[in-house]
């Protein structure tokens, strides 16, 4: 049996089985008998199989795409250069527990931003790369806007001198003037804008530091970005209060803005969010409303994404960690993760890669090796899950994957339900999705399966 055939999964859905092979780019809904024939056909190697399942078995017997693997070798193709102009922020989101001071966080020196870009371009030039990618994170990156305004122009100038292409991306709260937003629309390639919904939702969940409404400014800026050449991705934080309103949020966003993608992410519970009476939504309720929202957004030509159930690529890393992203903090530390040091240390992780100094990027090879090993391949919980190459275990900091195989938590169940929902919808099984998600026993049978591997010894078909 080929190693990629181990990555063929099967999940019961009602009286059928969803066969999913991400590395073979195959999804099929078959009955129990067909599932048995497919498994037997794969285990036997080349024995003939019934004609009805022959095309499926043939495709699954082919080598498929290589399984995604951790990075190896020298640091010569960073995923991107990340700049954190400041950890400060001008919003007082009721679920944000970011420990950095909102208003008094240090701001990156302009010279440090230029040094980081110089070092990054030198690294790319040294390895013959022609494309650069610069991302801005925070806090709120535009809360230290001068750093961004300089860094973008400096990077563009350096790229032009070196004959390289450069892309810019930022994750932002959208609270700035129209003139500033026009500048962003003109200079950036992708903007991930946090907007939780219509006015009462946005203002409840994402007020300004002084408690004032942010809705009008953010909605205006979403329209400016919609009218520009920049790719707009809207990011919605879904809570227990807003989960049933996801279809309404989707309809409103489709009508008002022109995003390429709406990313629905569920709340990560914090003491602050609990104090505000907000909790993560119930997984099956999220999956049901995600499905409805995706259909609405699909009619507008907009993609709907849950980051742990993004079926567009296969990966072993959920986030930039392990993909050689170099994220520079205001103090010159170079890290693999844009979260705060105390956050990853609390989880027993060390995301520090090195430092930026007058001689350039000083990356510790051992640290690079250590961080590259943080992949789904090292996460027992995920070993037999059909989502392993999409979710890849989720956030290293916020999702505990040091659990026995198949001992799923709410994040896993949500990811599994949304993944199965999307696969069934791709197969045109919309009615089955609705019936399946409406029947607790049915979706629980799918979600709580200990192993999804079709050819695993414990798989029952």
């Amino acid at each position, binding site marked *: 049996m080929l190693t990629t055939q181990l990555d063929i999964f099967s999940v019961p859905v009602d009286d059928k089985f969803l066969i999913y092979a991400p590395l073979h780019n195959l999804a099929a809904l078959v009955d129990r008998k067909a599932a048995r024939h497919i498994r037997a056909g794969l285990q036997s190697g080349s024995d003939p199989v019934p004609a009805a399942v022959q095309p499926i078995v043939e495709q699954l017997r082919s080598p498929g795409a290589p399984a995604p693997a951790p990075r190896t070798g020298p640091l010569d193709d960073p995923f991107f250069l990340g700049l954190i102009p400041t950890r400060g922020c001008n919003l007082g989101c009721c679920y944000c527990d970011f420990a950095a001071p909102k208003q008094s966080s240090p701001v990156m020196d302009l010279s440090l931003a230029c040094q980081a870009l110089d070092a990054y371009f030198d690294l790319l030039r040294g390895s013959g790369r022609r494309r650069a990618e610069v991302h801005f994170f925070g806090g709120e990156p535009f809360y230290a806007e001068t750093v961004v305004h300089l860094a973008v122009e400096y990077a*563009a100038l350096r790229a032009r001198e070196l004959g390289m292409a450069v892309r810019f991306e930022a994750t932002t709260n959208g609270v700035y003037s129209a003139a500033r937003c026009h500048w962003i629309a003109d200079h950036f390639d992708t903007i991930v804008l946090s907007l939780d919904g219509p006015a009462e939702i946005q203002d409840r969940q994402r007020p300004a530091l002084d408690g004032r409404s942010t809705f009008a400014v953010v909605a205006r800026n979403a329209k400016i970005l919609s009218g520009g050449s920049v790719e707009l991705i809207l990011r919605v934080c879904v809570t227990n209060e807003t989960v049933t309103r996801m279809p309404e949020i989707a309809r409103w966003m489709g009508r008002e803005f022109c995003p390429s993608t709406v990313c629905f992410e569920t709340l990560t519970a914090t003491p602050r969010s609990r104090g505000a009476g907000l909790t993560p939504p119930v997984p099956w309720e999220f999956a049901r409303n995600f499905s409805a929202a995706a259909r609405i957004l699909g009619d507008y030509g907009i993609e709907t994404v849950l980051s742990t159930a993004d079926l567009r690529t296969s990966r072993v890393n959920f986030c930039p960690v392990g993909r050689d992203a170099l994220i520079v903090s205001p103090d010159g530390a170079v890290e693999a993760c844009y979260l705060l040091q105390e956050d990853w240390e609390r989880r027993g992780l060390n995301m520090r890669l090195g430092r930026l100094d007058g001689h350039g990027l000083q990356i510790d090879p051992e640290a690079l090796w250590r961080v590259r090993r943080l992949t789904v391949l090292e996460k027992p919980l995920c070993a037999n899950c059909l989502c392993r190459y999409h979710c890849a275990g989720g956030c290293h900091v916020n999702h505990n994957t040091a659990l026995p195989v198949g001992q799923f938590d709410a994040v896993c169940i949500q990811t599994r339900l949304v993944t199965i929902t999307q696969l069934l919808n791709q197969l045109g099984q919309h009615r089955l999705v609705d019936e399946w998600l409406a029947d607790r026993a049915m979706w629980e049978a799918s979600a709580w399966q200990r192993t999804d591997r079709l050819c695993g010894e414990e798989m029952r078909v």
Partner: protein
Amino acid sequence: MSGEAGAVVFSCPEAVRWVEDADRVLVVDDRSGETHTLRGAEAAVWGWLTLAYPYPKLVQLLAALLVLSSADAEQRLVAILQDWRAAGLLQMLEPPHG
């Protein structure tokens, strides 16, 4: 668009329009039909003027962009602004009285 240069305030005449392209800014004067292509540092300064940065900040940004001393950056900035004034892309406003 308007920006301060010391006590002086610059603004763009109504007839001047511009568009950002991938690596340049195209500035069009509707009165004459003339088009000006700004690249590199000039494109950056134009963008910063749209953000209404005050003159000292423009000097600081240009110095960082071109790795110049403040004095050299200011000299360069003055030359750029003078060129744009001469081409009718910028006009000087009277400072407010009283």
